[in-house]
């Protein structure tokens, strides 16, 4: 029991030292105020202890100056902590552009990871150090939460949409992965490991096969795209009944009701599973629902495939997605 006893978690990511620095600052603030208040209380209790049963206290009962001071100083400290915390949080929301993507699907009570090159893992995630990793995550059932204490990252994983988190591991090692949103019977069993490796070792690991054939995710997505009959409508010629998907990912889309949305991962997922939710302007709501016909992993593979489709060379500039008839 005692050999493994720690008082503080290790720092294994680029953001961990930033989080810990804010933590230490707040500990210093807390120690100061707790000692101040406890010290004053104990001191006053003793110094002003009632000496006679009929003794009463002084008439002093207010000071505007003090009220201002002891409101202003805590508020100033609070502002520092607010901006500091907000800055770390903003960094946590913005993965670097060169982040490697990993798909994570949580379900009662396991984590399924999918590397883009093809390897899959359950409850374990191998990553290279000194390389930002972006997790695109969804749940098959209830809300879970992906938490790696050593990295100081956490993100709830929801059914019906994607959430994402990113980190950059700084030292090789094995780190706890915990589900940290109560999800039923084996919530405390929905744990695993993140294994950070130096880049060479990771490359070797990634190229290896274990069990399943390791088809790159975008390729798997392309196969599903074909198998499900998608090219019959999403095609480059005049027989197309659906918008072109080339270069769609990340672009703004104008919908039939006039609204404009960005074609992010959530949009792509929703458009596959519930196509009537957002119909593109100039197209009929003809697309069948794929909800119930494909798994969340397959949707992620399709999304990855669609993101790999570069815009056609003859369409200049990004522009909006327009129906064939308007060209």
């Amino acid at each position, binding site marked *: 029991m005692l050999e493994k006893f720690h008082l503080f978690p290790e720092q294994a990511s680029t953001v961990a030292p930033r989080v810990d620095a804010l933590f230490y600052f707040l500990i210093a603030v807390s120690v100061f105020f*707790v000692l101040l208040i406890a010290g004053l*209380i104990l001191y006053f*209790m003793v110094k*002003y202890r009632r000496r006679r049963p009929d003794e009463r206290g002084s008439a002093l*009962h207010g000071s505007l100056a003090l009220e201002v001071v002891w409101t202003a100083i805590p508020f100033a400290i609070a502002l520092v902590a607010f901006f500091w*915390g907000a800055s770390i949080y903003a960094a946590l929301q913005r993965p670097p552009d060169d982040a490697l993507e990993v798909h994570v699907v949580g379900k009662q009570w396991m984590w399924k990871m999918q590397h883009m090159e093809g390897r899959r893992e359950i409850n374990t995630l191998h990553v290279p150090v000194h390389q930002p990793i972006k997790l695109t995550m969804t749940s098959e059932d*209830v809300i879970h939460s992906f938490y790696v*204490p050593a990295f100081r990252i*956490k993100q709830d994983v929801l059914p019906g*949409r994607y959430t994402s988190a990113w980190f950059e591991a700084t030292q090789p090692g094995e780190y706890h992965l915990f589900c940290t949103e109560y999800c039923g019977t084996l919530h405390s069993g929905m744990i695993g490991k993140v294994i950070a490796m130096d880049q060479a070792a990771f490359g070797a690991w990634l190229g290896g096969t274990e069990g399943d054939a390791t088809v790159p995710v975008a390729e798997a997505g392309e196969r599903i795209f074909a198998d499900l009959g998608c090219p019959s409508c999403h095609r480059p010629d005049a027989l197309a009944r659906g918008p072109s998907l080339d270069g769609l990912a990340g672009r703004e889309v104008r919908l039939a009701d006039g609204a404009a949305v960005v074609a992010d991962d959530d949009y792509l997922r929703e458009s596959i599973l519930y196509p009537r939710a957002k119909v593109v302007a100039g197209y009929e709501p003809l697309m069948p629902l794929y909800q119930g016909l494909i798994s969340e992993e397959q949707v992620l593979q399709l999304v990855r495939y669609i993101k790999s489709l570069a815009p056609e060379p003859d369409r200049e500039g990004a522009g909006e997605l327009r129906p064939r008839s308007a060209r």
Partner: protein
Amino acid sequence: MDIVERRPDYLNADYGVRSWLLTTDHKRIALLYLVSITVMFVIGGLFAAAIRLELLTPRGDVVQADTYNKLFTMHGIVMIFFFLIPSIPAVLGNFLLPMMIGARDLAFPRLNLLSWYVYLVGALFTLWAMITGGVDTGWTFYTPYSTAAATTKVIPTAVGVFITGFSSILTGLNFIVTVHTMRAPGLTWFRLPLFVWAHYAMSLIAILGTPVLTITIALVGLERLLHLGIFDPALGGDPLLFQHLFWFYSHPAVYIMILPAMGVISEVVTCFSRKRIFGYAFIASSSLLIAFLGFLVWGHHMYVSGQSMYAGLVFSFLSFAVAMPSAVKVFNWTATLYKGSIAWDSPMLYALGFIGLFTLGGLTGIYLAALGLDVHVHDTYFVVAHFHYIMVGGAIMGYLGGLHFWWPKITGRMYPEGLAKVAGIIVFLGFNLTFFPQFILGYLGMPRRYHVYPDEFQVLNVLSTAGTSILGFGYLLPLLYLTWSLRYGPKAAANPWGAAGLEWQTPSPPPTENFSETPRVIHEAYDYEHEITIRPQEGVEVPVG
């Protein structure tokens, strides 16, 4: 000042079960609540003991996973809805509010009795749900787990909580109308005891916030029953909608739990310093400010939920803001001690313990308000430690301190003071041993609601469980000696502490009508300079009018 002959008081005014179960006397209703919430506290405490027993070892060797999940759920539901939220308002508030303003009862005495019956029905319903299988969703009932996946008694429990919410709303309504319409002549708003201000602010939260919980819990039940698709994405719903609705009430709910305790502290600190409270207007207005700001911060429970980053920024800023009025209170209470005449009686020890523990607990709220830091500690034992510091180290110590302070008034008996001091110290030490290690566990990364855990967390868990046994013993002592005092305690004078306040101008225990004549108030609150005449041999007299 021994009372030689029996005079009529509210306890002996009438006898028999019917005179208690059909009473409309606010003082008797307070005692009805005292008994019921004590029973619920024991039940909630037994759940806690079972949890901590299981967590002595990293393996699941005391109960099965499903049982454990029910234990922490039911511990939370019982303690929050059936103990903490009613505790001070329903016991001390009911008893004292009319007396503190010179009134004979609350504005709606029969509604007051109804509040208790509603509470009782809700409690019995929930207990029945627990006995016939229990619920395992966490007290937070997150969807879609609670609406689609849980196979336990979600709907019966939801009905129990739904019903009990009305008790809180009715009490809040009663208090607000009472304070507005029934103050004695001369008792202006800024002469009100701070206990009254605190309960007024709490009542505003109760009547504005509780209906949202009521509706939300009804929607959970309806979705579970009718598969409506409000919260379940598989049916087209949004699980985050539940979280927004739930926390919209449940965050202000924590202020329902703490504001009355702060009211107690104000009363106790000023009495045992025998000095006017420092910064009266600031403490009074801070209660209102906490109530207002408390409604604007709910999203700090949702920083990693998938809520927008911009919402997170707004909620974080407001969460820092809501901490400020509480800090102002702590400083004012401490300043009250300066140049006071300080007695070390047990109510004061509880109050001072509150100030220390609330300061520590409240400061850890700052850690949680800070966005980037909360990402790491959210849903870990850090949060568990934070709220137990406030709710147990704060609210329960406030409740015990208040119970001791007004015990002579309520029962006409004194309790054994030496034993009370010892019990208070045991509670303080046991509490810290139980919950301080949990801050460390949380930062290490131990998640909440974990039935089993990695080996390296065991040492701190053992310390925490050890603390629980000491804390439990500390709570057992007042249960025993306060009960003992009912029969064997020395009879209490009208004002054994030499306190200011209209409630101390009545005999202990008071007659049913509280005051034979409506008092006139001519002094400021806690005006120890002028209001109290102290004669050491004969106790204390407070001139009226």
